[in-house]
């Protein structure tokens, strides 16, 4: 990791203050806005699916993003992809986080050993 330590602390503090503002929002502001407007609330329902997928997908593929801002990246195979597919099946069937991690790691180690 080559990250400036001061900047890293700034990230932690800013991320913490922002998170606290989001958590406190409707709890601290009393009487003015009691409820999130219905259309916004319906959109917020999709935030976890969109964000979590955005975090997962690039990490299970080999993405070569060195082609410049206007080019599409080169996407290649990674053994993490089938390992993640197996883990997704476990997540779907068991809804168990530790089991999903365990099976996914074992699957990756097995595929890398082949």
């Amino acid at each position, binding site marked *: *990791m080559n*990250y400036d*330590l001061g900047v*890293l602390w*700034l*990230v*932690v503090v*800013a*991320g*913490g203050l*922002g*998170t606290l503002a*989001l*958590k*406190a*929002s*409707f*709890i*601290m502001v*009393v009487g003015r806005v009691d409820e999130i407007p219905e259309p916004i*609330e*319906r*959109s917020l*329902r*999709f*935030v976890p*699916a*969109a*964000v*979590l*997928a*955005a*975090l*997962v*997908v*690039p*990490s*299970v*593929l080999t*993405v070569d*993003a060195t*082609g*410049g*801002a206007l080019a599409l*990246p080169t*996407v290649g195979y990674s053994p*993490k992809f089938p*390992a*993640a597919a197996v*883990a*997704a099946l476990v*997540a779907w069937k068991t809804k168990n*986080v*530790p089991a999903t*991690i365990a099976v*996914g*790691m074992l699957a*990756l*180690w097995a595929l*890398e050993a082949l």
Partner: protein
Amino acid sequence: MSARTDAFEGARSVTPFLLGVVPFGLVYGVTAVDRGLPPTVVAAMSAIVFAGAAQLAAVDLVARGAPAVVVVTTILVVNLRYPMYAASIAPYFRPFSARWRAVCAYLMTDQAYAVALTEYRENDPDVDRRLWYFLGAALALWISWQVATITGILVGAQVPPGLSLEFAIPLTFLALLVPNVEDVPSAIAAVVGGGGTVLGSNLPYDVSLVVAALVGVLVATLVERAQDDTPECAAADGGDES
């Protein structure tokens, strides 16, 4: 009932969640150290940010050298669910003093929210029990999270390299993602968010994650709205003026 009993019952109600929270905290600590973040920052983030998925995302982006603005924005986008929790639980917190409300807000987590709201709705407890039940549940999770992440940091320093441990991060997100894909619009949100991030990965400053996630939310919203409109139109068969 006494404050102590209420707090104890709150704490007891979250124990099933610890099966998920403790390994999550271990993964966070182990991978953060494994990817070269300073242990003090890793531990401090658990206390200052106190939001697991956001912390894990931040570690991932910092390790990849993403700009600070992108890391902070990602933390906030991942935490956009909290205003929803705040809005739905705020009526029950209203009689608390401002100081206690601030403490409750800081301690808010997915799990504390879930058990407290269930208790409030089912048993309609008085103000004192509402406060202490929440504090018991939330503090039990807070302590577990800090202990688990510090343990992960200590263990992480001992783990040999070459085990592809960084893969535990997407696996954790995957385990959280799957139950959130519950219908067609949420599946579209996931496909657009995930696919868009990859397609946009040549964009500068690693903005593709935040942009793709927001576009995913927007597309899913439009699809859901179209779904809702379709049966009405069919039923009205031209008679509907809206």
